[in-house]
């Protein structure tokens, strides 16, 4: 059923438009004035001000490999992260640790560890699945590059972002 919407009956000052126009202009003038004197809070001036200090603890930025306190790359190249990674951004080529090494019992280390940051979706599954606490999502978010090749983080880049992780389980140091 059609509904007839009754139009409001305007009195003469409303039909003149001018009071409404002046009221509108006063409103915009107020906004202008508040902006001019800096009373309105506006968007962050990005390159000068950054998010870094306000990022929450659980922020998921770029994934990175970490070293432990003795300087060993914690990754043992088990490739679980490579398997779990939903967009398949991780590529690992494992290598073998020579028998004379202090950590020879670890047996494997990543010879190459690439994360394609164009594919990465920052889901954090690699961090969750890692049995060695070797990969963490850090707070870096401005990942840029001029070519596709630039956007692939190799092992050295990942270790540079990751740095040293303190206070994690050091199971390989005690085992004989």
């Amino acid at each position, binding site marked *: 059923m059609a509904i007839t919407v009754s139009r409001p009956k305007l009195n003469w000052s409303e039909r003149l438009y001018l009071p409404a*126009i002046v009221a*509108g202009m006063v409103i915009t003038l107020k906004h*202008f004035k508040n902006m001019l004197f800096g009373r309105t809070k506006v968007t962050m001036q990005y390159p000068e001000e950054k998010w870094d200090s306000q990022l929450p603890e659980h922020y998921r930025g770029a994934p990175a490999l970490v070293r432990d306190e003795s300087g060993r790359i914690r990754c043992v190249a088990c490739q679980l992260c490579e398997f779990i990674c939903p967009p398949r951004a991780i590529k690992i080529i494992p290598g073998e640790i020579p028998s004379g090494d202090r950590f020879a019992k670890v047996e494997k280390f990543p010879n190459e560890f690439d994360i394609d940051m164009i594919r990465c979706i920052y889901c954090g599954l690699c961090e969750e699945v890692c049995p060695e606490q070797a990969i963490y999502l850090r707070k870096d978010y401005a990942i840029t590059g001029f070519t596709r090749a630039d956007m692939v983080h190799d092992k050295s880049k990942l270790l540079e972002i990751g740095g040293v992780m303190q206070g994690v389980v050091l199971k390989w140091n005690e085992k004989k």
Partner: protein
Amino acid sequence: MDYVFLISSFIKIVALFAVVLGIVNYTVYAERRISALIQDRLGPNRVGPAGLLQPIADALKFLAKEDLTPGHVNKFYYWLAPCLAMIPAITTLAVIPFGSTLFGVPMVIADINVGVLFVFAIASLSVYGIVIAGWSSNSKYPFLGGVRSTSQMISYELSLGLAVIPIFLLLGQLRLTEVVRYQIEHGWMIAPFVGDWANPHKWLLAIPMMISFVVFTIAIFAETNRLPFDLPEAETELVGGYHTEYGSMKFALFFLGEYVAMITGSAIIVTLFLGGWHFPWIPDGSQGWGWGLVNIFVFFSKVVVLLCVFIWVRWTLPRFRYDQLMRLGWVFFFEIALANIFLVAIILAYFPS
């Protein structure tokens, strides 16, 4: 003597052109900054200090862009239209007295005795730029923009013309320098605070002048296609209106033409109603060239203030619907302006000063 006239005219033309184009560029910048501040944004603030070099960057961008002519347009008129949009707006500036005198030279390029008539004659031509652009683009949105523009500009030209008649009933002539001289002697048209300001006759006349001023200003808004009346380009409904098919410098000419028309319109309003280059207690150029420069500065300050009002209105009001626009033009402003003429005539006839 002739050489003095030629050389001084040439210098005036070049200087006025430079000043106006400078104001145009910075009006675009001001528009973007003021609109941003009104909408709680910041606007362009990256190029140069506070974004002041933004107009230069914009101009370079426009000049460097590929000048594309679409295949389906009427080439001749397509190229002609941007020129037709720009030229009338600039030409009108020739008759506007933008200062008193400087070194004894009157600061108006052509002090002709049909001043206002010339302004209307040339300003009416600016509709051709838009109509030809809309038609030659051979595309539906520009066409609709052109059609709207024709009817809108013709409708509002009427109230524009009728709104200034009271001034010329009062003065008896059309020369714009005389309008300014009258306002110096008897006070500004809408606020007769100077000259013989205690005369109640002047205040009685200020009432119809105020009506004229409001009607004229609103008609100028419509003539320059500024926002409450920007139906020819209406982005939200006509994509871009008459300049949809235009790009690079040809688009820039339309864009700048609109702003030049705004400056011209403001200059006419200032000359007719706000005392031209006159400001109380500032002597004219015969007292020394410094005062002459101050007069020019006063004139352009008034123009800039009006331009800010133009921008302020644009970012406050929504667009009129088409039938509202026509109704406003033909039913209200036309009648108000007409009644206003009679009001002034009655005041002049029965309440002599």
